[in-house]
């Protein structure tokens, strides 16, 4: 039985009408995953559970029982999200055989709405990276060009949607880890407002930045997933009590006559690192938005070159603290040869963590260490406040900020060797997690080199509905 995916709602209608069963749908995805094994997207495929869930759903429909909002929806999860009884590794050797004792809240919510979890996806180790080359389980390949990276750190989840190995997927975004691979792979990737989605059961990288968010092909699908996973969670004290809107319904009924106010930074679009074709595409979009009656104005933002440094001081500090729990004692890899307590810890960490993770732990320890704490860590927290104030100031005058998602299209595997150069791949994506604002990468463009790239939009905090709404508008007419 052949299956062509267009949207979750369309699929659900077809299932209800008996045109296709959930079982057939799962068979389809298992087959695609098998055909595209070379992309190294999945660390594990849950075929058995997926078929069980599909059959249970098919039976529910046959007997006219109530089904969840996401019935039939095949989802892949980045391997930092815990699923009870399954391994979760953060693509690290240090967690190679770790089994989750409970479900992450996002998993509970997906399952409660009858989603089908098809597998866990490869990523950069502990979500640290912009190319998926830091995974200890091998590179993920970009499905459009196998010599190119998919971006990172949620590279596997991006390619899973790009290559049609699932309908939607979840990733995590700390400095761009959803939006940057979404841009490189030509799909939608959204980082919600900090506090919108629970981080309970999600392996931490930098706790004041990390957010879970969806990859999807359409704004409607992203909206549906987000409204299921978002909202207050008693297990995560940083989740907001603000009610979650029915994003999918709201944007389905939106009127196209709304006119928005956009700001853009000429320094960003004109930045020397930006590929000329990307620059041109963004300027063309700005002109088209203006022609359609939207207001788009240039706005000076003088902190552009400070964003990545702030990000690295604060995230490495939080990472060095978060990753101190991996000591080879309570769980995870242990160097069995060590006979002294100190050696158990040091050897296990040195053998279990990859190079980039160790580099970031060292920098984080440096900025937190006595004598440097105020000059680096506290100073960066103050700059974070300044950047947040400035961003709030801009968003008090405008609805959205337009930026390129990435300065270039997907680069070659092995092409970028210098860590600092790699960090600059996130130059336009770090602002939103620094300030806590939601942001989305909309797949609008194709470069003459054949690779896609996205337009990034930053919205006001907790205005996910508006962000999805403008995404839908752009996908329809731009």
């Amino acid at each position, binding site marked *: 039985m052949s299956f062509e995916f267009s949207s979750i709602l369309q699929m659900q209608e077809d299932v209800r009408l008996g045109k296709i069963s959930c079982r057939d749908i799962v068979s389809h995805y298992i087959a695609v995953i098998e055909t595209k094994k070379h992309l190294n997207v999945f660390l594990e495929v849950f075929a058995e559970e997926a078929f069980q869930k599909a059959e249970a759903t098919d039976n529910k429909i046959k007997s006219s029982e109530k089904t969840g909002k996401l019935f039939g929806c095949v989802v892949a999860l980045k391997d930092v999200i815990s699923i009870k009884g399954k391994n979760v590794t953060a693509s690290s050797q240090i967690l190679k*055989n*770790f*089994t989750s*004792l*409970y479900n992450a809240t996002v998993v509970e919510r997906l399952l409660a709405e009858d989603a089908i979890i098809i597998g866990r996806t490869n990523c950069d180790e502990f979500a640290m990276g912009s190319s998926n080359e830091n995974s200890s389980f091998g590179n993920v390949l970009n499905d459009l060009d196998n010599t190119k990276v998919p971006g990172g750190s949620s590279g596997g989840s991006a390619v899973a949607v790009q290559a049609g190995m699932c309908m939607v997927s979840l990733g995590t975004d700390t400095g761009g880890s959803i939006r940057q691979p979404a841009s490189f792979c030509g799909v939608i990737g959204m980082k919600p407002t*900090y*506090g919108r989605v629970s981080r309970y059961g999600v392996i931490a990288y930098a706790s*004041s930045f990390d957010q879970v968010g969806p990859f999807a092909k359409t704004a409607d699908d992203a909206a549906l997933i987000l409204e299921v996973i978002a909202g207050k969670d008693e297990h995560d004290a*940083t989740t*907001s*009590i603000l009610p979650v809107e029915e994003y999918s319904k709201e944007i389905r009924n939106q009127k196209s006559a709304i006119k928005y106010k956009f700001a853009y930074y000429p320094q960003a679009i004109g930045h020397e690192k930006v590929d000329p074709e990307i620059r041109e595409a963004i300027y063309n979009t700005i002109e088209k938005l203006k022609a359609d009656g939207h207001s788009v104005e240039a706005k000076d933002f003088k*902190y552009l*070159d*400070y964003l*990545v*440094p*702030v990000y*690295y*001081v604060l995230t490495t500090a939080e990472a*060095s603290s978060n990753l101190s729990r991996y*000591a*080879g*004692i*309570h*769980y*995870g*890899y*242990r160097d*069995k040869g*060590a*006979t002294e*307590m100190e050696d*158990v*810890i*040091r*050897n296990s*960490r*040195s053998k279990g963590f990859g190079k980039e993770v*160790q*580099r970031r*732990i*060292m*920098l984080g*320890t*440096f*900025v937190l*260490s006595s004598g440097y704490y105020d*000059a680096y860590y*506290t100073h960066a*927290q*103050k*700059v*974070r*406040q*300044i950047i*947040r104030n400035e961003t709030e100031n801009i968003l008090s005058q405008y609805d959205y900020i337009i930026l390129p998602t990435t300065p270039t299209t997907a680069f070659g595997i092995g092409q970028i060797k210098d*860590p*600092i150069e790699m*960090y600059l791949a996130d130059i336009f994506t770090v602002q939103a997690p620094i300030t*806590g604002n939601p942001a989305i990468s909309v797949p609008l463009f194709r470069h003459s080199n054949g690779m896609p790239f996205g337009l990034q939009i930053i919205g006001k905090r907790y205005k996910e509905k508006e962000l999805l709404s403008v995404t839908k508008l752009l996908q329809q007419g731009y």
Partner: protein
Amino acid sequence: MKVDKQLVDKLANLSKLNFTESEEQEIIKDLNKMVDFVDKLKEIPVDGVEPLIYMIDETNVMREDEVKMEITKEEALKNAPLADSDYFKVPKVLKKK
């Protein structure tokens, strides 16, 4: 700011990481680059600015302080690389001379 061998040794100790000599040379080089890169932040004056620490605006959201049993002892020990039925096991810390 210059990162030297002495500082890297100190940081490696605090981080509980080991580096071979060649790895150490590499990490000294990388950390110097990274520190130079973040030193750019010193260009921004921060006098009178409070550090941004909490990312959500809501404060004092209360809940009942209830005891819940969510993970059993067996489960807690399940992922341990070395444990008996009651405890995580590590090498002897206090030794007879």
